[in-house]
Structure formats: C-alpha cells, structure tokens
C-alpha cells in the first residue's frame, strides 16, 4: 500500500455525531415504503409497451394514409 492509498483511506470528512438521528427525523415524515409485487411491475411494463405499440401503429397508419392520398393525386 503506498502513500496515495494511505491518504485516500483516511477520513477526509467527518460524520456528524447525530447524523443517524438527523436522517431518521426526516424519514419519520415520509410514508413507509410498500413492496410492489414483481408481477404487478411486469403488468405495468406490458401496459406501457402495449400503449406504445398502439401509438406506433396509429402513426404508421396515418403515414400510410398520407402516402396513399398523395399517390392517388
């Protein structure tokens, strides 16, 4: 271990004595995290992808319609 390692391993900053209490005081104002099921997350992603696919297909249909209309002129 060289001098650089020694210097980087040293405490460059101090942890305040009451740091944990400070954090917990702020956490006390927040709601408890609730576990979302993985199944629910997958369904949410599926819904998002489904919506994106629908939007994309509508855009492509519109573009096709524009092309067909302009080709007919």
């Amino acid at each position, binding site marked *: 271990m060289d001098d650089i390692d020694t210097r*980087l391993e040293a*405490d460059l*900053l101090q942890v305040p004595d009451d740091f944990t209490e400070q954090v*917990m005081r702020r956490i006390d104002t927040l709601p408890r*995290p609730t*576990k979302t099921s993985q199944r629910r997350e997958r369904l949410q992603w599926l819904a998002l992808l489904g919506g994106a696919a629908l939007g994309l297909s509508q855009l492509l249909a519109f573009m096709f319609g524009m092309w067909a209309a302009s080709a007919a002129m």
Partner: protein
Amino acid sequence: MDIKAILARIERGDRSAFAELVRHFQRPLFGYLGRMGLRQGQAEEVAQDTFLRAWQHLSAYRAERAEFSTWLFTIARNLALNELGRASNSREWPVGDDLPDAACERVQPPDAVSDTQDRDRLRQALMALPADDRSALALAYFKELDMAAIALIEGCTAGAIKVRLHRAKQRLRQLLEST
C-alpha cells in the same frame, strides 16, 4: 450485517431498523463523498439525500440484481455528480466551515493546520480528475464493493474500471507531487 433481515423488519413496519443501515453505511458513504471532492456541508446534504432516496425507493430494490451496498452507492454516485455539477455551474463559493479562517477564533496546533492543508491539497487534486475516474477511485476504497460491484455502479466493465483506477492513481500522484 444481515441486510436481508433488516429489510424484512422494515417491510413489517419497523422503521428503526433503517437506522441500523444508516449507522453501517454512513462512514463509508462520507468516505466516498470526501474522495469525490465534496466539502463537508455538501457531503452531509448528499449523504442525507442518499438515505432518504433509498428509503423512498426501498420497494424497488431487488436483492437478486445487486447487493444493497451496490444499490445504495449507485444512488450516492448520481447525487454526488449532480451536486458537483450544480456547484460548478453556479460557481459557488465555500461558506461556513469550508472557509479558511481569516482570523482564528482559537489557535490551532501546527499539526492540525498541516492536516487541513494536506486534505485541501488532496481534495483539489481529486477535483482535477475526470468525474468517472474520480468516482471509480472513490468507490475502490470501500471494502464491501468488489470490482464487479464498482463496474455495475459505474455502468462499465470490470476491465474498464481497472484502467480507470490505474489512470486515476497515476494522475493523482503526478498532481500531488507537483504541488
């Protein structure tokens, strides 16, 4: 420390279990933030925000994807980089405890002054490193994180991390020798 057991207790409604996580990770987190070049005040804010964000998104943490330390330090890294970017954009001047005392209220022993100057020199040298190299270097001194974990946090390969570490240490050595 049994992280799984602590997380299970939190899930059952025991908020105080989170304090054990804070106590376990606070010192390594401050160590990381110090090596990232943050000042004391900035580090305290970022460290608090890291734990708060971890609390708020605890339900999104998946043990099968990464260790809790990896997940926590990913949050810390993002917040630290945001803070450093914000501070450099606003060209902030250090205030409060970061200001060198123009007139000391109490006389500091020479060793303490020399230690402070040493830390400032190291901090300035660290700030001269590119952010990615600095972050990899800063993470490397937290023993709970191996190369694979650091690579996951940094979003690159373990091989790239080794290159960054080597480059960062070389550059740091050059900077410190030139001051």
